[in-house]
């Protein structure tokens, strides 16, 4: 039998060889194309993730976003600084893109506002704006980047997040994984990984263009974090919390990447 088959193989004509190789390669091509199409169908029909800290994305795509975050976190360094610009380049009219959590019909009195930092055991540290203004002031003129694709050079000033931490002896909390920030009405909220939060250019801003923040830009205090897209730059900070798990995040619940790092 064996000798017979090898003999037959040797006697294949060119025409037979062409047909045979065509058959094998086109069949292989069809199988691969079919599985690629099947894979695509599987991905596009895959169910949405179970709603939790993140929501709104297809489950496999969310897994991919989370894994991609882990890879790109390796490239993060607090020595990598966002490019800064001279004051003359800063926009005179700073774009107001969203008012979630700071809607104008909501009752809010900046004068009675206090920043609340939730410490271990539920103890709350309250800080007034005047107290914050006594801390070293940091100015930052940089290109604010929105996830939508627009960007704007803007001029902010406030207290560095890390300066606030050190001044109030909260250093032990930087050992934790995340910082959570919420508006006083809890309608808008973000979660920030600790390395990004303590980045030297992360500030809690109370001024824009050398003037106190207008309500639309997040008065009396907002987060300016250049290593994140605008969606993480929470306006009107009410409370700050620390945790080892991801705090809830408004846009991560709407299908966006939790990390959203730049």
């Amino acid at each position, binding site marked *: 039998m064996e000798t017979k088959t090898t003999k037959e193989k040797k006697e*294949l004509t*060119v*025409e037979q*060889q*062409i047909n045979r*190789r*065509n058959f*094998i*390669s*086109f069949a292989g*091509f069809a199988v*691969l*194309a079919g599985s*690629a199409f099947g894979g*695509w169908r599987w991905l596009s029909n895959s169910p949405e993730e179970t709603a939790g800290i993140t929501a*709104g*994305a*297809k489950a496999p*795509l*969310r897994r*991919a*976003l989370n894994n*991609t975050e882990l890879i*790109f976190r390796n*490239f*993060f*360094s607090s020595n*990598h*600084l*966002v*490019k800064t610009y001279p004051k003359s380049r800063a926009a005179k009219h700073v774009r107001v893109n969203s008012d979630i959590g700071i809607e104008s019909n909501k009752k809010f009195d900046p004068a009675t506002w206090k920043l609340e930092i939730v410490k271990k055991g539920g103890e709350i540290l309250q800080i007034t704006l005047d107290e914050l203004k006594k801390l070293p002031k940091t100015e930052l003129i940089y*290109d604010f*980047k*929105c*996830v*939508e*694709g*627009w*960007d704007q050079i803007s001029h902010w000033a406030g207290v560095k997040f890390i300066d606030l931490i050190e001044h109030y002896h909260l250093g032990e909390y930087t050992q934790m994984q995340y910082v959570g920030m919420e508006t006083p009405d809890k309608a808008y909220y973000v979660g920030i990984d600790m390395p990004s939060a303590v980045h030297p250019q992360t500030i809690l801003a109370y001024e824009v263009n050398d003037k106190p923040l207008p309500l639309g830009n997040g008065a009396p205090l907002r987060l300016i974090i*250049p*290593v994140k897209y605008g969606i993480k730059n929470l306006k009107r900070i009410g409370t700050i919390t620390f945790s080892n798990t991801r705090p809830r995040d408004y*846009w991560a619940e*709407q*299908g*966006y*990447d939790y990390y959203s*790092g*730049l």
Partner: protein
Amino acid sequence: MKVIKEKHSLLMRWTHWVNFPILTIMIWSGMLIYWANDEYTITLFGHKFFSFFPEWFYHALKIPHRLSEGMAFHFLFMWFFALNGVFYVIYSVISGEWRELVPKKNSFKEAWLVLLHDLHIRKTAPPQNKYNAAQRIAYTAIIIMGLGSLITGLAIYKPVQFYYLTRLCGGYHFARVLHFVLTLGYVFFFIIHIVQVILAGWNNFRSVISGFEVINEPAELITETPVQPTTANGNENN
């Protein structure tokens, strides 16, 4: 008498066909992202000739209001796009196939003659091996464009962590323009490529799937060289 002539390696065929759907997904998901702030137009002397993209185009492709979805797809398939390209380049370098691909000194002059021939202005085309001069230029350019998309993409994706890439690309804005223009380039390449493949015919198209072309050799050559060695060779390669 028909003779089998080996043309494309398995890895070249594999990466070529893998790239096609991946690049399609990257362009589609890129449009989902771009829609959220579609600021590019062709404007000359204050007159807007074209804006990317017209409403009917967005609606025909169901693009509006899918930014987060677009980003999720884009940042998954970017890995496959990059890896596939890296495989191809490494393979081409190690196998020496790059010699058939990269333009030679006279390729730029020859490409003009190829163009004239393709447009039926000139009767003869310059002699060639695997790729003619115009193909060498186009196929090398498309690889460089792929690298360009990767670099401009990273420059936009992580402009703080990869600030040196953003600087290399002429800043955040220019990196985005380059990323966009490269994509238009792929679409342009695709159109020309399809027309050329149709014109080149079945034998050429098949070679990108089966790896070989069939050549009709004059009868007297067959008597001199037996078919056997060529075919044995062919089986080995495939």
